[in-house]
């Protein structure tokens, strides 16, 4: 599907300090209920043998997939891939809150807003994009880990970052025979040890808020999705694409767009 723009997040994992400014900024900007979030920082936990310890933080939100599983299951047509921006959006006027998309999303980034009876998730702050501002999470990122922009524009910050990257990792997911083709591109994730077999990306199933640690995601909530490292062909779980020659990737995308 040719799009005018190809908006994507590029996240440099080496620059994320887990300060959570992005989480609060998103919460304020988008005014969703206090017991939900649209954005997470996955904490791998302390790894390694004393004293050679390591710990990495992987920020994520809706991946705005090129082949989103959520749109396919949407019965009302409320969830759609926007033809102009390439963003995956929810028309909350049309949403009936059936929750099929919440189940279908392998990243667990959607939730049902119980009060309004609709599904909600990251919309890349379209209200800000319209007036020329970056998403709230990107604007306030202290470590400049988060970038956002148009991959169709070769001069955009994200295109340049991908071009110069030593490696790019995407958390691709195989749904049936199709890959999700997510639009969050991680820099320095491979160099920092990559994704671990214990990592999983999904949403809290039982939010007990605001007293419980709704930021820190419980073991149970995470079991839904497993992301083995470089696990192509392993039982239909996640594919982690490590593209070490980014040029190829960018050129590939251009072909795709044409």
């Amino acid at each position, binding site marked *: 599907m040719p799009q005018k723009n190809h908006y994507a997040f590029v996240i*440099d994992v*080496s*620059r994320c*300090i*887990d*300060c*959570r*400014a992005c*989480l*609060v*900024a998103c*919460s*304020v*900007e988008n*005014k*969703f*209920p*206090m*017991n939900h*979030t649209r954005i997470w920082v996955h904490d791998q936990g*302390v790894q390694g043998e*004393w*004293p050679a*310890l*390591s*710990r*990495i*933080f992987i920020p994520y939100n809706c991946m705005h997939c090129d082949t989103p599983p959520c749109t396919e299951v949407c019965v009302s047509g409320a969830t759609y891939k926007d033809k102009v921006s390439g963003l995956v959006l929810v028309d909350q006027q049309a949403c009936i809150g059936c929750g099929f998309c919440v189940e279908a999303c392998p990243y667990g980034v959607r939730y049902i807003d119980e*009060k309004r009876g609709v599904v909600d998730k990251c919309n890349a702050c379209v209200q800000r994009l319209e007036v020329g501002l970056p998403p*709230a999470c990107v*604007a*306030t*990122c*202290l*470590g*400049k*880990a988060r970038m956002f922009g148009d991959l169709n524009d070769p001069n955009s910050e994200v295109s340049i970052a991908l071009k110069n990257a030593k490696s790019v990792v995407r958390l691709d997911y195989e749904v049936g025979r199709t890959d999700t083709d997510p639009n969050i591109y991680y820099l320095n994730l491979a160099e920092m040890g990559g994704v671990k077999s214990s990592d999983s990306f999904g949403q809290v199933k039982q939010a007990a*808020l*605001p*007293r*419980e*640690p*709704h*930021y*820190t995601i419980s073991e149970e909530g995470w079991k839904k999705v497993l992301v083995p490292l470089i696990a192509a062909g392993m039982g239909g779980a996640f594919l982690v694409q490590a593209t070490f020659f980014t040029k190829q990737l960018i050129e590939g995308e251009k072909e795709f767009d044409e």
Partner: protein
Amino acid sequence: MPETKISRRDFIKLTSLAGGALALGQFLPLQVARAARDIGSLDDRGNGTISTLCEMCVWRCGVLAKVVEERVVKLEGNPEHPHSHGKLCARGQSGLMNTYDPDRILTPLIRVGQRGEGKFRPASWDEALNLVAENMLKIKRNYGPEAMVFSSTHNLSQPQFENLLYGFGSPNYGTQRSLCFNAMIVANLITYGMEEPDRDYSQLKYLILTGRNLTEAISTSETSALVDAIASGAKVVYIDPRFTKTASKASEWLPIRPGTDLAFHLALINFMIAEKRYNQPFVEQYLLGFDKLVEAVAGYTPEWAAPITGIDAQVIHRIAVEFSEAAPYALAHNGWRTSNFINSFPTERAIAILNAMTGNWGVTLLPSAEEGAGGLGQPPQPPYPRVSAQRLDGVPWKYPFVPLKIGIFQQMRDAILEGQPYQAHGWFISRQNPVLSLPDQQKTLEAFGKMDFIVSVDIIMNDTDWFADVVLPETSYLERYDPLVPMGNRIFIRQPVIEPQGDARSALWIYKELGKRLGLGDFFQYTDEEDYLRQELAPLGISLEELRLRGYVDLPEGNGGTEFQWSTPSGKIEVYSDALGKAGFDPLPAWQEPPQPKSGEFYLLTGKVGQHTQFGTQNNQLLHKYQDVPRLWINPEAAQTLGLKDWDLVEVTSPVGKVKVALQVTPAIRSDCVYLTPGFGHLSKGLRTAYGVGSSDSALHVTYVDPISGGQALSQTFVSVKKA
């Protein structure tokens, strides 16, 4: 954990509740919206962006506040401000939730129950201020003005707070700095003649961070600069008994034995001298007493330091070589909360000297931009009355090196308790929470018991307010003006972006109105907040409207004096301090072994998290939402020895107190230490979000006073841990 009604409310409902409170407010003295329309910040419908300053910590980032129909809906970092560069941290982003906190105090309160019972009745400003003035004057009449103690810290209205206390005639001024960084300030004053030189990361190649957890104890611009420096290839050696988030970003983490940072730095100095790895021309020209240092550190070899610090001698050799090779693009960070051990002062001196040896002055270490800038005017005022009474905290008669405006807070509390050298009877507290910040909480509550009268100025019902007799509601930082703040070659303004809620008033207004009732009207010669600011701007010929619209004005470039002269007695960087020697202290940094825990005990470590500031932000629902549950960190080995597992509820016992807290078993800490996030364990039930969450380390901390800097030794409390 107990639930509260609040937990079910969502954000939108909360903000509309707060809006209801605004509608009830009868008096809106500033007419913020009208004034903002006049200068063009808001349009006719009350929409627009207003430039102001953050107050979620003391870093004071520039903020652009988005206002929709006269409600603040989003805060952004001001790209023009050197501390924010367009960014705000989690706390800064959450700032509007402080303003719209459903637990805001919106009317003066007068206690009706027992102290600490939390029973208050609302009162008018007139009644509350009259009652405060009456009690303060009674204390003055009966016991002298020194029997009133005053405490407040690190806020822009402090000049007027000082007018109140010095005008009243009391010498007793408590700030929280002795619980934080007195050791660093006094060491820098002695060595460099300034409280804290600025750091520049732009050319940095090598950084030694000693317990400076920059990614969790966040200073927005400096935290960003560190991440940039690492991305550009700077090497970072991080020294801390904990594997913090900063450790995870560093090139190298050294889990040093607590209390031995001094030995590590002395060994670096020793090795660099032995190998002549220092900037000889710089040292000869600008350092005083380097030859005496050479002799004094002769025994402090890396081999000597290895068994003390737990860091291999070869590693110390290597770091000394790398550090000196990177010079002058090298920096040894002086730390942040440096009140850790009884030897924190010589540690800070050693760090200051290590920097001086590299000749990094003017490269990675710069004269403090905040000192010397300004040229601001101030309202006229008479001289302060002469004070004959000694200060309760022993400054300067017992502690000559501690600046008067900094003082020793924990010593003041102890003097109140002991009634020595005289008995204090009243305590005026502004925007401070000594119940949670001072070590040994029980002592603080006992000291409150000695008071005839306690008055507190605050925004929400913090723990100290909970025990006060009168609570005066201040406007939040998004609702008020504060005195101006020069920053480099610019002057920035904190200005209201929305109308004050309820009956809350600015500190400038409160101090002036109270001053009038105390007969101190001459110390507050301004008609209102705007008049105060106009008097400040008068000598510069800058209009308040211009400043308000842009949020800052540029000052003409100053000459700044010569860069290579320091405000020390000799005008040089004082490696050897005659002043220290004359006062009977060691004029050079020398090794002091701090006390160690007995077998079965742990060092109780303290340190910040990125989502909170001290003891005042835990009730902010947005920060609460994204914080980790505050638990006691313990190493898996230690946990196993004690038969404890993750999430166990444990009892932590120190010589002065006991708390119960959930356990976090993590390899990110040495096995001889435990760590507790400060700022939790609130006692006030008026904090409906924060109450009941976590435990307070101030209930455990033993009080210490460093004889030179007056600093508390916050990591020198040893605790035992057992299953609760």
